[in-house]
């Protein structure tokens, strides 16, 4: 039987990136994906004949270093992608637009405030930027590299200068409500600008914790927080990653479900030695690298009997309940949003901070809001291959939809919230309902089942103060190594976290190759 150096579980973007790096360094790498296509949450699938869409619909901070290292441009990834303007939809058609670092359609005061706000936030984002592509130090291990990382972080912060460092310490865990209130008058502006702090999280404007950090995290890339749809769409991007992986020698198999991580047990202890597939086939390797979420990796694939008790308890207590649902519409043509010239932007439907807060309040108690808030993109505008000629795909992140719905999810509940989401869209695009050929609504529970992600959480584990940096997913597994020798993590549940960044996959590979 062929013996691999590394087996990677899951060909999401992080699995692909990690596999590619390992193979590039000369390892024999087997990449196993349960779905029929690679890409994970960024994989596109046909939800109606001729109409394709992916759960993740934009890029905001994919690492430039990874693009270069893996020569993704040679494999079809286009770095000169169009950045999307962000549009705050207004019920009366007085939409606001954030484009090229400027706010349009707002008061002069807000437009001016935004300039100061953006410069400061970008300084903070730049300060944190070096740490997203770095293994976090292990608390208590006083080796030089770890101490240097701590020192580097401290120095970076200090170099902000007294005033800005104080300001950073003040705002880092601030509720976005406070940050927005301090800076802007218009409620629509506040809602739009705070959106990226909450997207994908169990968090609303009045929640203290990590919303500001999440914004800074998303501002860390080359795009300064702007979202984009890569040329060829998310499928094009996944294709580039797969093509690079294949060129580097990765043996990728799709439709290959891993059932169990094989763990060799003898008097020397435990060691991950391969995987057993759902069909009974086994593959052996020197190490197993999982891009699955931490709970799935440790509880379903490795088994608690092979882990420590308190460690398992910490993994069990990870907060990983998803609160974002996906609405996919196959449309006859371009929808008409009165007051909007085109549909090329990223449209936010949240007419004020309270709209976000109230939607969250309902979800907090296991219910769906009467007035969902959402982010809407038409990927087919940027990539014609996603829909038949002249037709279009609408993709919306609908917040806040709880994974654990009171009374449980069923078709009726799903239909009800889908219709509510379409009703909401209708308020901004009055004719959209007539254009719908087909609609699909994926609750976090559906995402959990289809994509094998615990809680249907985009980020595998909430991106929160207690679950980031050297605490992600928890200490003793925060440096991509796990308590089981030979078992590594490389998914969004590891530092730095979720979104299509490639960073966990990159960092894990660096750690493995050390």
């Amino acid at each position, binding site marked *: 039987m062929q013996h691999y150096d590394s087996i990677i579980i899951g060909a999401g973007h992080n699995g692909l990136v990690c596999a590619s790096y390992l193979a590039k360094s000369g390892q024999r790498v087997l990449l196993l994906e349960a779905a029929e296509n690679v890409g994970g949450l960024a994989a596109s699938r046909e939800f109606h004949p001729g109409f394709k869409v992916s759960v993740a619909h934009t890029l905001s901070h994919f690492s430039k270093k990874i693009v270069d290292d893996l020569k993704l441009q040679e494999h079809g990834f286009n770095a000169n992608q169009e950045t999307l303007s962000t549009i705050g939809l207004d019920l009366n058609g007085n939409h606001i637009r954030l484009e090229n670092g400027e706010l349009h359609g707002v008061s002069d005061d807000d437009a001016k405030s935004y300039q100061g706000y953006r410069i400061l936030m970008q300084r903070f984002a730049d300060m944190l930027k070096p740490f997203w592509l770095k293994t976090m130090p292990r608390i208590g291990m006083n080796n030089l590299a770890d101490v240097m990382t701590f020192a580097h972080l401290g120095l970076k912060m200090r170099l902000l200068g007294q005033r800005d460092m104080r300001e950073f310490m003040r705002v880092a865990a601030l509720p976005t409500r406070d940050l927005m209130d301090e800076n802007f008058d218009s409620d629509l502006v506040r809602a739009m600008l705070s959106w990226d702090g909450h997207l994908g999280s169990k968090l609303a404007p009045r929640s203290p914790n990590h919303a500001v950090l999440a914004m800074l995290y998303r501002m860390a890339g080359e795009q300064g927080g702007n979202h984009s749809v890569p040329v060829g769409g998310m499928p094009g991007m996944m294709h580039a990653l797969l093509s690079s992986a294949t060129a580097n020698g990765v043996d990728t198999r799709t439709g290959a479900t891993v059932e169990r991580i094989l763990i060799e*047990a*003898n*008097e*020397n*202890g*435990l060691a991950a030695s391969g995987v057993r597939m759902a069909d009974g086939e086994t593959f052996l390797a020197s190490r197993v690298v999982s891009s699955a979420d931490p709970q799935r990796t440790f*509880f379903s694939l490795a*088994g*608690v*009997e*092979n882990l*420590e*008790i*308190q*460690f*398992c*308890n910490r993994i*069990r207590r990870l907060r990983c309940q998803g609160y974002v649902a996906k609405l996919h519409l196959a449309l006859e043509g371009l929808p008409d949003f009165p007051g909007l010239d085109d549909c090329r932007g990223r449209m936010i439907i949240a007419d004020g901070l309270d709209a976000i807060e109230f939607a969250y309040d309902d979800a907090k108690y296991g219910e769906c809001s009467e007035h969902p808030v959402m982010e809407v993109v038409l990927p087919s505008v940027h990539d014609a291959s996603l829909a038949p000629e002249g037709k279009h795909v609408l993709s919306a992140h609908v917040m806040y939809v709880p994974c654990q719905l009171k009374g449980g999810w069923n078709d009726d509940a799903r239909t009800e919230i889908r219709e509510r989401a379409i009703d909401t869209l209708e308020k901004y695009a009055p004719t959209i309902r007539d254009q719908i050929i087909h609609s699909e609504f994926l609750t976090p529970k559906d995402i959990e089942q289809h994509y094998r992600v615990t809680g249907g959480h985009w980020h595998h584990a909430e991106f929160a103060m207690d679950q980031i940096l050297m605490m992600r997913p928890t200490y*003793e597994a925060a440096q991509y190594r796990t*308590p089981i020798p030979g078992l590594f993590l490389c998914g969004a549940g590891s530092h730095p976290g979720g979104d299509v960044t490639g960073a966990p996959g990159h960092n894990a590979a660096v750690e493995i190759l050390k």
Partner: protein
Amino acid sequence: MTESDPYAGERLKESAFHPRQAVLNIRNAWASWNGYKLANYYYDAEYEYFCIRNQCGTYDICPMQKYRITGSDAEKMLNRMVTRDITKMALNRVTYVVWCTDAGRMVDDGTIFKLGDNKYMLTCGSPCGAWLKMSAFGFDDVSIVDESDDIAALSLQGPTSCSVLKAMGLHGIETAKPFDIRNFTFHSGTLMVSRTGFTGDLGYELWVKSELGLELWDDLYSAGADFGIQPFGEAATNMARLEAGFIMPGMEFNEALKTVHFEHDQTPFELNLGWLVDFKKPHFNGRAALLRDYERGPRYTLTKLDIEGNKPAIESYIYSNRSCNRQIGYVTSAMWSPTVKANIALAMIETKELRGELFAEIYYEKELRQYSKVAKCEIRTKAFWTPTRARATPPPDH
């Protein structure tokens, strides 16, 4: 009265044997253990101690925590929790175990009774339901039931204990080896007898449903009348266990989950319980940390000391020199042992200092005057008191 008792929830619980024990507790010397009223002594601690060594006595272990752990994953779950390999346990056997945190610090010690395939009883000194629940997480089929209040348990210890049980009609009990379990029909139920105890002497522990507690007491005391049976309390237990070299939580070790300060808890190696840690077992909780502790050698080692003179070295420091300016350890338990006729102690001593000389600085009182002395200590490697009858099968008849 009870209905209007404002302290009802705060009062100590009474064990199944309480009606009989209360009558015998002439001194009203009550202590408590896990919320139960428990005799510190009944008449006189030393008298009770001599009963254990010369006749036999009973000690109420109702307050001890008892958990029934069953289900097809019960063995797997327990085996991952404790440091010993319990997969080799035979049916109707008892084994002494310790369990540790992920960091290899001791949570508690206790005994596991194998009552059937994937049927176990775990006993321990402190409640550990939360820890067991945490340990069982992720196993498909494990049930943990706290039976502490449902089982009445009595420890019968001393040279005549086997004779008492025989007189009670427990046929064949003399063939039970140490750590064996035997079951007998008893009134409307079953009496489980394990050849176990905490005194280092010949002894048994008797387990029945709480409802049968008084029947057990009465039958035992009526059979034991001619064999000098007496109840003994916590004070006598503490003396007997120290002679046997057994450790006590709160004395020799601090339960890790209740320890605040860094490394104020202990590893099994520090407690000289390395023989309970089975590194041949591929995985158990704390294995990696314990392996590091083992390879590095424990910083402290619990040591048995025979100290010159007759003044117990209670709460003494241990020094490496007679002038007592290099402190290297501390005494955890100490007493004058009437049976061994020696001044004995258990002490935590820095491992690297064990090769050198050891001195205890002992403070004592004589009619309100305080005195101190420095006494030389000799290390003992075996238990202070190990009578052959404790292990003989059948035990000598009386």
